[in-house]
């Protein structure tokens, strides 16, 4: 504990020399390094050079204001604990400063004890903030590491089991009764589902979704939608659900990754089918809205309760109204959101219980190619002449 305190650095920014001097005196002999600055500009320079743990900032100073100093400190390093010094008349502004991220305030005039207590509290706060940040970093590393462990230690043995089931089925193909074949089939399906689930977890835990940005290409949403519909069609047909598409034929291209976009659309379609009633319709629409393409997928299913709406794009959310047999991993929408985010787009939902849900994805349109601009210019010229 003492060791940590020895290196504690306190910076005081105040235009009154009396205040600076008394602060220095009060802390003298304690486990602190203290530096002072007479105005905001110099104070901010000191923040960079001195690297303080806590900073006292006088709100009323000539030149750059205490509020601005606070804001800049917070931008520079949000883990630095800042405390405002203020006269009684400006308690309101102290409250305002705390709202803006200051940790505490020191009313003028103050006794040495008050100053010491607040300093100690501030340093304790700083210690906690740093500890929290370190824990968060550790958790993130664990996350990534965990992803690697799951990938190797679970996926490989499952793959081996599946491969042997394939082999077994192959060896016994002429000898198995129908019931035995079905048992084998169930095993294969279960393992396949397990492997898919691990794959999905890896997608959510790992950071690989962000990496897709490196391979963005001009992509046609019409094609993405077409392929997605095709892949969920069997599932829809089993529930006698009709998927209707209404697409703007001249939909411009977007900059994106076809595979993950398809995954996003398939996720939304799969959900729509899952929560739809038998014999209903799902509508897909895509149109230009400003400089974006808006893709919407509407179902007439069970809908989402209003109190659940804020959570549906989070990890592991599973709709309570889902038929038990249809429940998924609760990761589909989280992955979809991440894919859309990586494409610089946005996703939102409108839903009413028992009426159905509509999911909207917006993706930025690829800026026009130079040649195209030229042709349209010449056309415009030709038509005006």
């Amino acid at each position: 504990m003492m060791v940590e305190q020895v290196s504690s650095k306190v910076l005081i920014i105040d235009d009154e020399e009396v205040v600076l001097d008394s602060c220095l005196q009060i802390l003298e002999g304690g486990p602190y390094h203290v530096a002072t600055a007479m105005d905001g500009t110099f104070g901010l320079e000191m923040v960079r050079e001195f690297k303080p743990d806590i900073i006292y900032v006088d709100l009323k100073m000539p030149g750059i204001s205490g509020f601005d100093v606070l804001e800049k400190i917070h931008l520079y390093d949000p883990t630095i604990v800042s405390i405002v010094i203020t006269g009684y008349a400006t308690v309101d502004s102290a409250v305002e400063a705390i709202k803006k991220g200051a940790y505490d305030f020191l009313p003028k005039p103050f006794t040495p004890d008050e100053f010491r207590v607040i300093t100690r509290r501030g340093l304790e706060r700083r210690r906690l903030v740093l500890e929290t940040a370190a824990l968060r970093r550790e958790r993130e590393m664990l996350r990534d590491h965990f992803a690697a462990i799951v990938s190797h230690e679970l996926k490989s043995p499952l793959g081996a089991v599946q491969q042997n089931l394939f082999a077994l089925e192959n060896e016994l193909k002429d000898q198995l009764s129908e019931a035995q074949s079905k048992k084998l089939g169930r095993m294969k399906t279960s393992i396949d589902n397990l492997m898919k689930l691990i794959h999905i977890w890896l997608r959510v835990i790992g950071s690989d979704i962000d990496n897709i940005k490196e391979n963005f290409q001009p992509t046609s949403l019409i094609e993405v939608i077409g392929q997605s519909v095709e892949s969920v069609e069997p599932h829809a047909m089993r529930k006698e659900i009709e998927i209707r598409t209404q697409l703007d034929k001249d939909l411009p291209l977007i900059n994106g990754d076809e595979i993950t976009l398809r995954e996003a659309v398939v996720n939304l379609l799969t959900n729509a089918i899952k929560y739809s009633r038998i014999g209903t319709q799902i509508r897909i629409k895509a149109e230009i809205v400003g400089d974006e393409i808006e893709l919407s997928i509407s179902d007439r299913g069970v809908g989402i309760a209003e109190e659940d709406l804020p959570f549906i794009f989070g990890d592991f959310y599973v709709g309570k109204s889902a038929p038990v047999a249809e429940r998924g991993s609760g990761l589909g929408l989280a992955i979809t959101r991440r894919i859309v985010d990586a494409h610089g787009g946005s996703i939102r939902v409108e839903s009413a219980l028992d009426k159905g849900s509509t999911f909207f994805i917006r993706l930025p349109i690829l800026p026009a190619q130079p040649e195209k601009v030229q042709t349209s210019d010449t056309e415009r010229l030709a038509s005006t002449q």
Partner: protein
Amino acid sequence: MANPKKFLIIDDDPDFVEGIISILEGAGYEIDARYNPKEGFKALEKGNYDLLLLDIMMGRGAEGVMVARKMRKDPKLRDIPVLIITGIREQIAYLFPGSAVSPHFVEVDELVEKPIEPALLLDRVHALLERAEARKTKTG
């Protein structure tokens, strides 16, 4: 089949290898297995194989790739067709961007993901053998 084709499989997971061997032997091929890249390459140099099945994610990372690179440099080995087996497709895409289908480590190769359905495995093996044969008649 009077003279069965002989394959080598290099993969560090013996359980997985068993599942592959059973399918290939069932189809009349003869298979040798090695469980690490070093032994695997030695066997490849000595034996007279018609095809190599190669797991590329072995040991610490993509050690299988080293086998393929060494094959490429060897005029005796570079014409052997290779079926590359991988556990994780993303890793391939990451290691070799833009060549997820056929990484072209050697002249004739193709990529499949673990686990592999018997029909798909036999189909790929067959196609690779045919391509290698066609190349031989063209160049020879």
